[in-house]
């Protein structure tokens, strides 16, 4: 069966990039500069998509204050320890690159027309509230980063497929050779033949309830991220056979009231001055860990509140500027509720896992290559390079170097049986009547994570969660229905979410220890054998494999002080 009869459209390209956020756009624009044919596939519309859709107010790290890459690794790891406990969770050669190439990335960004400077032509390095130390974070006015980046991509000559959801990657003899995709408006089934594929999607978050407790339909509002964050990059990489890392580790934090979020709801980073936290009856406390918050609850001291009344006026005004840069809608939301952050305290709600982010994701080396030939991962879906500045760097590094692989890679050969199988799976929900709505199944899956994984884990809950998930998959996944191509996208997202929740539970089950904010009620001590280890999961000939692997050491050439 010829490909052009199986697909509504066949695209041949040198590089396919999945995800048009910051990382994907930088990679596309840079790779196209090398004369490559680049196809960027974006589930939404790249002018306002991805985690920076509404804007961005900070960028890090940038080399400053005389800090060397080696010193930066120490700072970076201290920060990781504060969140995840002792040990390394990512390849230290990756954070080395963050700083070593940071000035180059800033220069490249300026060349693409994306400035990090202010109107006065200078950079502004923010002091760091959480960890103190050197100033490595730039305050940027990036309200329009996405439309500007999208324009740079179009100008570079890269092709952009908007409203297009990748179904799965195509592989042949252990090499990634493209992907199948669906247009979420027209239902067009597309085959993309690519010499190399770059995953640049967001983190995985739609496995837990969002932070936003309002009654938005299907609870699809996440304050760090847009609602599209269904872990698509993680899921397609896993099903293609690539290694995923640290699926046991979740970001965690408080749900915050309404939608004030950045900066007033999340103002710990208020340009160097930390917020104040109070119990409901006015006792000042430090920002609590999950364990401490549990004690506060048991003592009847919750809810807890954040206050900004101690900030100097200049700082309150800085936060207003941050609102405009990152989420201007917050002004309206705050005013509609009559919320004055200068006089009112702000409720921090239940402390719970939020999403799977640093250090989770597609396991990559310092060149952002995954364990599969021809597959790269950058930005929030890679293990080790999430966040705005690191997404920029990853995009630029891959965009600048991928031509070397493309020039040596042979022509991709597509396995037509694989295409047919992916097509049948993807389109199946269109022919199901009176079945299950994708969002119904997604909410049930999220409930499993909340009820059976959560902050405080034990074997019993995790095993029950595993059983419940299997039962949901068996009974309801085959009954997913879609009344139009948009719902078809939702059905595909649901499949991705269910696959990844399964991996999340499996990874938590094998980790029999408490470390940082990974808390097991039945294993309350650290397991020394897990020091500086990564949990790796992959699919090998259709069988799930889980292994605990040592984190690589810093390369000797990087370990030399003064490089």
């Amino acid at each position, binding site marked *: 069966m010829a490909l052009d009869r199986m697909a509504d459209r066949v695209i041949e390209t040198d590089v396919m990039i999945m995800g048009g956020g910051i990382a994907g756009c930088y990679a596309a624009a840079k790779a196209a500069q090398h004369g490559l044919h680049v196809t960027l596939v974006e589930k939404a519309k790249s002018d306002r998509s991805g985690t920076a859709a509404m804007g961005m107010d900070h960028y890090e790290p940038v080399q400053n204050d005389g800090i060397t890459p080696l010193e930066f690794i120490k700072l970076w790891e201290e920060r990781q320890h504060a969140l995840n406990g002792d040990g390394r969770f990512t390849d230290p050669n990756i954070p080395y690159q963050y700083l070593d190439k940071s000035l180059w990335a800033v220069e490249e960004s300026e060349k693409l027309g994306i400035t990090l400077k*202010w*109107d006065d032509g*200078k950079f*502004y390095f923010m*002091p760091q*509230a959480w960890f*103190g130390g050197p100033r490595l974070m730039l305050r940027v*006015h990036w*309200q*329009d980063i996405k439309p500007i980046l999208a324009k740079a991509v179009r100008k570079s000559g890269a092709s952009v497929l908007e409203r297009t959801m990748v179904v799965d990657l195509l592989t042949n003899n252990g090499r990634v050779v493209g992907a199948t995709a669906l247009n979420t408006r027209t239902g067009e089934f597309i085959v993309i033949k690519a010499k190399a594929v770059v995953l640049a999607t967001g983190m995985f978050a739609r496995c837990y309830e969002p932070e936003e407790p309002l009654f938005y339909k299907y609870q699809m509002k996440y304050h760090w991220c847009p609602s599209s964050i269904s872990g698509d990059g993680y899921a397609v990489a896993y099903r293609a056979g690539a290694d995923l890392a640290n699926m046991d580790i979740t970001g965690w934090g408080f749900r915050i009231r309404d939608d004030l979020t950045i900066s007033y709801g999340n103002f710990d980073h208020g*340009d*160097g*001055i*930390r917020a104040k936290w*109070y119990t*409901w009856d*006015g006792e*000042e*406390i*430090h920002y609590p860990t999950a364990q401490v918050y549990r004690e506060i609850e048991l003592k009847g001291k919750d*809810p807890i*509140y954040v*206050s900004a*009344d*101690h900030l*100097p006026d*200049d*700082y309150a*005004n*800085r936060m*207003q*500027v941050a*609102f*405009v840069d990152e989420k*201007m809608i917050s*002004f*309206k939301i*705050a*005013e509609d*509720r*009559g*919320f*004055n952050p200068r*006089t*009112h*305290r702000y*409720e921090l709600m239940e402390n719970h896992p939020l999403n799977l982010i640093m250090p989770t994701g597609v396991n990559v080396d310092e060149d952002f290559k995954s364990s599969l030939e021809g597959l790269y991962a950058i930005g929030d879906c890679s293990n080790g390079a999430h966040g705005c500045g690191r997404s920029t760097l990853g995009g630029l590094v891959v965009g600048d170097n991928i031509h070397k692989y493309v020039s040596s890679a042979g022509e991709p050969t597509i396995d037509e049986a694989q295409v047919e199988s992916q097509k049948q799976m993807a389109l199946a929900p269109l022919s199901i009547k009176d079945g299950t709505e994708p969002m119904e199944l997604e909410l049930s899956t999220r409930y499993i994570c909340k009820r059976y994984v959560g902050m405080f884990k034990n074997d019993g809950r995790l095993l029950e969660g595993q059983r419940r998930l299997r039962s949901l998959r068996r009974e309801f996944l085959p009954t997913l229905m879609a009344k139009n191509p948009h719902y078809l996208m939702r059905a595909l997202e649901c499949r991705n979410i269910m696959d990844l929740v399964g991996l999340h539970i499996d990874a938590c089950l094998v980790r029999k220890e408490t470390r940082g904010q990974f808390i097991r009620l039945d294993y309350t001590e650290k397991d020394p054998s897990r020091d500086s280890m990564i949990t790796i999961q992959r699919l090998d000939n259709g069988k799930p494999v889980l292994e605990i692997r040592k984190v690589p050491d810093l390369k000797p050439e990087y370990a030399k002080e003064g490089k």
Partner: protein
Amino acid sequence: MAEPTSDKHYEEKFEFSLWKLIKKRAEQKDISYHDASIEVLPEFQKTIRYRDKEFEEAAIQKRRQEMLELSELERKLERLKKGEE
């Protein structure tokens, strides 16, 4: 500072100074809030001491000191609870 759990502070009218400027500019020029913010932001920013390191460091140090004192207090309470003092 209103009581943290009181309803009062969610009923009063409040306007952010920058948002007020954006809304006013949008109305005056019949442009979007987004376009108005691009015009207004640089002016507003000039009213803020961003590059005054002395002021910034003093404000940061003041808060750090407060946090240290809070830690001391917490440690003292912990010792009292254990009957060590």
